[in-house]
């Protein structure tokens, strides 16, 4: 089981001289497993375009492309590459498309395919020739071919969003994006007219328990790819409720959940390569300084385009 990162950026693609090393494409992961090197893709940000080009070179000459795409959610930065994924225009391609839909009337197909209409794109959904099936996901356990088990978990984001836990032959890889720690939305000041001690307590308990469920979801994983768009300082400065985690939160959560390797992903579009290098050094030192002697040190790295895990 291995993972190649094709897009690691959040919000919007940001090519340019300051993002050359870590990459400017939005989220897309290529996940391979099993004896026949099966393909599962997580999210179709702009990174899925180069992945599609690569698949046409490496996989297509050996037979039709048969893959699954799992969407964490349907925000634009996670679906925008879909119309540019070449295999969707090949009649022999088989794609199983999975993802959650926020409570509304529209189906997963129309939410993702909504960008394929003439006003946005020269090809409509009806013109795609690949064989595609759509599956709306909830919190569940999926059993894919060749003994891959995929567990899903609702995350905290402004729309319905799922984390994925891949389990195969004893190895575990978890994706947690886009995700903000659950917090007590009822934490008003004691002298505020809306303050209600019972509701406050209920909110504290709910947030604590939901965060513990996320910890349990990533517990013991070999690799966790965790949303870390902000530093804690940035998060506290007006970004609460935007649906993203701080690097500090992700590192602490991974450490307490016994994760072996943490990959911080969904970089802010404003984050430069030099800043990411510096942050890597800063947190690396902090983790080492705080590690108990004799205990394994949490391995952590900022995601880069092209990185293989």
């Amino acid at each position: 089981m291995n993972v190649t990162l094709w897009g690691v950026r959040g919000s919007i693609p940001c090519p340019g001289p300051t993002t050359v090393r870590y990459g400017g494409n939005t989220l897309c992961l290529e996940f391979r497993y099993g004896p026949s090197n099966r393909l599962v893709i997580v999210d179709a940000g702009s990174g899925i375009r180069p992945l599609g080009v690569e698949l046409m070179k490496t996989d297509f000459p050996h037979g039709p492309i048969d893959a699954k795409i799992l969407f964490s959610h349907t925000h634009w930065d996670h679906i925008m590459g879909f119309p540019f994924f070449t295999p969707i225009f090949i009649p022999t391609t088989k794609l199983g498309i999975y993802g959650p839909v926020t409570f509304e009337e529209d189906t997963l197909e129309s939410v993702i395919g909504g960008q394929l209409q003439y006003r946005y794109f020269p090809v409509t959904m009806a013109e795609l020739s690949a064989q595609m099936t759509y599956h709306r996901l909830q919190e569940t356990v999926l059993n894919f071919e060749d003994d891959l088990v995929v567990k899903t978990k609702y995350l905290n984001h402004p729309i319905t969003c799922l984390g994925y836990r891949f389990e195969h032959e004893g190895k575990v890889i978890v994706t947690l994006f886009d995700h903000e720690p659950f917090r007590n939305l009822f934490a008003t000041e004691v002298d505020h007219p809306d303050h209600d001690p019972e509701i406050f307590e209920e909110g504290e308990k709910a947030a604590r328990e939901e965060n513990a469920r996320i910890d349990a979801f990533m517990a013991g994983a070999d690799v966790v790819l965790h949303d870390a768009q902000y530093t804690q300082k940035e998060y506290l400065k007006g970004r609460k409720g935007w649906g993203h985690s701080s690097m500090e939160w992700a590192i602490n959560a991974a450490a307490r959940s016994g994760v072996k390797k943490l990959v911080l992903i969904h970089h802010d579009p404003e984050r430069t390569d030099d800043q990411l290098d510096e942050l890597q050094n800063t947190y690396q030192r902090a983790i080492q300084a705080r590690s108990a002697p004799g205990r394994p040190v949490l391995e952590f790295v900022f995601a880069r385009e092209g990185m293989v895990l």
Partner: protein
Amino acid sequence: MKGEQLRRALEGYIDKMPPLPTSVGKVLEICQKPNAQPNDLNKVISLDPVLLARVMKLINSAYYGLTQEVTSLVRAIIMLGLNTVKNLALSTAVLGSLNTAHTKNAVLNLDGFWLHSLCVGVMAKHLAKMRNIPQQDQETYFFCGLLHDIGKVPLNNRAPEDYLQALTASADQRISLVQAEASTLEFTHTDAGALIIDAWKLSDDIKDVVSYHHSPLDYQGPYRDLVFTVLVADYFANIMEIGFSGNRFPTPPSAEVYRTLGLQWMQVEALETQVRQEIERAKVFLKLS
């Protein structure tokens, strides 16, 4: 309509049942604000039995497939997010604001009904608190009190002429409304309530309260404390005439009810000021006079 025919008519109505007109305006006001506050959302949903039941139904429905049951709205807002719950509330509230035809012939004043439901919910919660029921369960007492008469909403909205017969019979014969419903309609608001609870897949404790709050001594299930507490609170609201649910001749709770709860009527009465204050706060929030 009566009996089976009435049941079928109500079944068709339940899925599009709107929230009470009392809270619709406030729901729209809060949910349409881009910066809706979690506290306001929690409060406005908690104050409307139809809205609360519908939101809880959706949260625990197959749509989300949650592995654990969510029984508190506070938790639902934290888990599913403000936007999701706001949309749920808004889509339900819109039903109520667009479709007012159903209530124009209503025989029960829905503001009065709302006040009665709220009073029973608040009293049930205070009784639970006084009797040291664990804090996390006190909301269930409120929720069950608020919903205990939910079956009257479809009767009133969908079959107002038939329901008027029951209300008239209750007044003329000086019998409780549930008895009058049984004799004139062969179908009671507890039957209608159970239909709703089944259709909306709400939990068994609520169903038992809705079904047995007029026949407590027939009840053999595990939620006896809850059922009995709500019926005492219901009697309080009727006797004190806080709101109006159509029941002018309520049956007093039997001695066994008080004995089981370890409660005396005096203790119930002693909570009156607190209960009235809490109701006033809710009215101010909804901007009612």
